[in-house]
């Protein structure tokens, strides 16, 4: 058995991103438009979370009406619109996140914030992706909203748009150290207040943490 599941390989898979070079794959669908544009122009289906079938073009540009409306309203603040495994992903300018969130909730009826989280890409210039998974009851549709933020850069809080973001942003702060501007109570939520470091960052090495702890507390070289 091959280790990849049949079907065609990801068409324009960017060469050279293999060795865990975190810079590219997930969030930045690298330089795809050139190769995939003609194909993607044909089926601009709305993102429905149906189990993926048949040959799927991974990470293709997305051009549906929603994207057109957002682009018309916010122009260059919409950095990128793509589709990955039939799921719509919009990447927006970090500073405009609050406004766009408000627009998506009020005008586009994405009234449920399912999830808010972050991803760390340490080799990128702006290392964090803040990822919002939205759902619209009216359209029965999901949408992923992303904003890139550098280390220490403030991300506008969306807790005034969806109150559920309150705890979710606290968790992202707790795990990644991302500061959400305008958050009512940005403190650690799962870890103790005096905790040092941000565990879900890629450079937070668990082995290092472990040896550090046993050295300090047990006086031995390594607990491994």
């Amino acid at each position, binding site marked *: *058995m*091959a*280790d*990849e*599941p*049949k*079907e065609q*390989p*990801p068409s324009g*898979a960017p060469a050279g*991103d*293999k060795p*865990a070079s*975190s810079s*590219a*794959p*997930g*969030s930045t*669908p690298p330089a795809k438009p050139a190769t995939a544009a003609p194909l993607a122009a044909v089926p601009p289906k709305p993102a*429905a*979370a*149906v*189990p*993926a*079938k048949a040959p*799927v073009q*991974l*990470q293709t540009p997305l051009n549906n009406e929603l994207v057109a409306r957002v682009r018309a309203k916010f122009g260059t603040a919409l950095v990128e619109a793509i589709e*990955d*495994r039939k*799921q719509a*992903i919009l990447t927006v300018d970090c500073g405009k996140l609050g406004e766009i969130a408000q627009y998506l909730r009020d005008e586009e009826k994405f009234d*449920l*914030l*399912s*999830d808010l*989280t972050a*991803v*760390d890409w340490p080799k990128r210039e702006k290392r964090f992706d803040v*990822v919002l*998974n939205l759902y619209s*009851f009216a359209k*029965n549709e*999901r949408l*992923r909203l992303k904003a890139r933020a550098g280390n220490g850069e403030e991300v506008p809080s969306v807790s005034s748009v*969806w*109150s*559920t973001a309150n*705890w*979710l942003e606290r*968790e992202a702060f707790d*795990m990644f150290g991302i500061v959400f501007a305008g958050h009512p109570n940005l403190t650690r*939520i*799962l*870890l*103790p207040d005096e905790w040092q470091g941000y*565990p*879900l960052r890629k450079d*937070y090495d*668990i082995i290092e943490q472990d040896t550090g702890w046993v050295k300090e507390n047990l006086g031995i070289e390594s607990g491994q």
Partner: protein
Amino acid sequence: MANNPITDVAGKQQTLLGADELILNMGPQHPSTHGVLRVKLKLDGERVIGSECMIGYLHRGVEKIAEHRSYQQFAPYVDRMDYVAAVSNGLGYCEAIEKLLMVEAPPRAKVIRTILTELQRIASHLLWLGTHALDIGALTPLFYCFREREEILKIFEKYCGARLTTHAFRIGGLQYEAYDTLEKDVERFCKAFEPRIKDYEDLLTQNRIWLGRTKGVGILTAADAIALGATGPLLRASGVKWDIRKAMPYAAYDQYKFDIPTGKTGDTYDRYMVRMEEMRQSRLICLQAIENIPSGPIMAKVGKVLKPPPGEVYHSIEAPKGELGYYVISDGTVQPYRVRIRPPSFVNLQSFDKMVRGHLVADVVAIIGTLDIVLGEVDR
């Protein structure tokens, strides 16, 4: 009695003279908190005027662990989040990775998955009902509920050898073929279970103490529920007819007929009624599913080493507690780049403050019970 201000005999509003606010700590080891949850209550007399949940006592860094395990190795870990509904956790995880790999489980596997997951929903709701009733002071339902739950756990044990942290499914399908008498066992359970639900209802639904303790307590309006991201029975009890099994069907749910029960006021009593009805509906799904389990393979063609093509996927299922989502990013290697778990309990617990304000301390216990949280999942 809920939000009424304190009034004197003439009905004139009174303020409590010299009554200082009191901070009361509940937990982390309070018998009614179902795990290590600490709640800081701000009291005025016996009325709650504010609250804060302190969580994280069970934090194990599940999402960090995922980045250091292969896709298959991580699967058993998800069972340990919501440990009273391990099968549902496993289903969500396996389906998310299948989506990432762009494979689909064979029809036979899907149906067996659906049966086991619905049994798990019943088991999870039974545990909730037993403990929730116990917290409020009704002792008997606990014994009844555990009796029936035991039957379900026996089916799990016969199927995969484990009762609680089952690791029942595999990425791509199932590891174990259904044992010979699975259909019969499920049918026997479902047949016996219907009168049992009536037994619980006889004990509680019209019980005056039960009504007094649950009606009008912890009201969550539909608008609040949506804003706070509450899902599952919480959202449905507030009157929003939304169930991921219907809205975005997964596994084999599109093949079966079932209703989505909803409530009107969104109080503790409505949530009780919604969950009771959900048990009935799950029972119906199981009965329909065992009618016709397709034959064929139980495993899709996936390799021994899983290397999903780079990209990302968000997949969520309707777990007994609400929307359980997995957001998985692959960088093309054998280990996931990032696994984010959207736990229903964590998000639902956020509505606690909204629900508890204005109520008495005794109602706090009822409200924690009605949220149906599992701290293993809240803290991860």
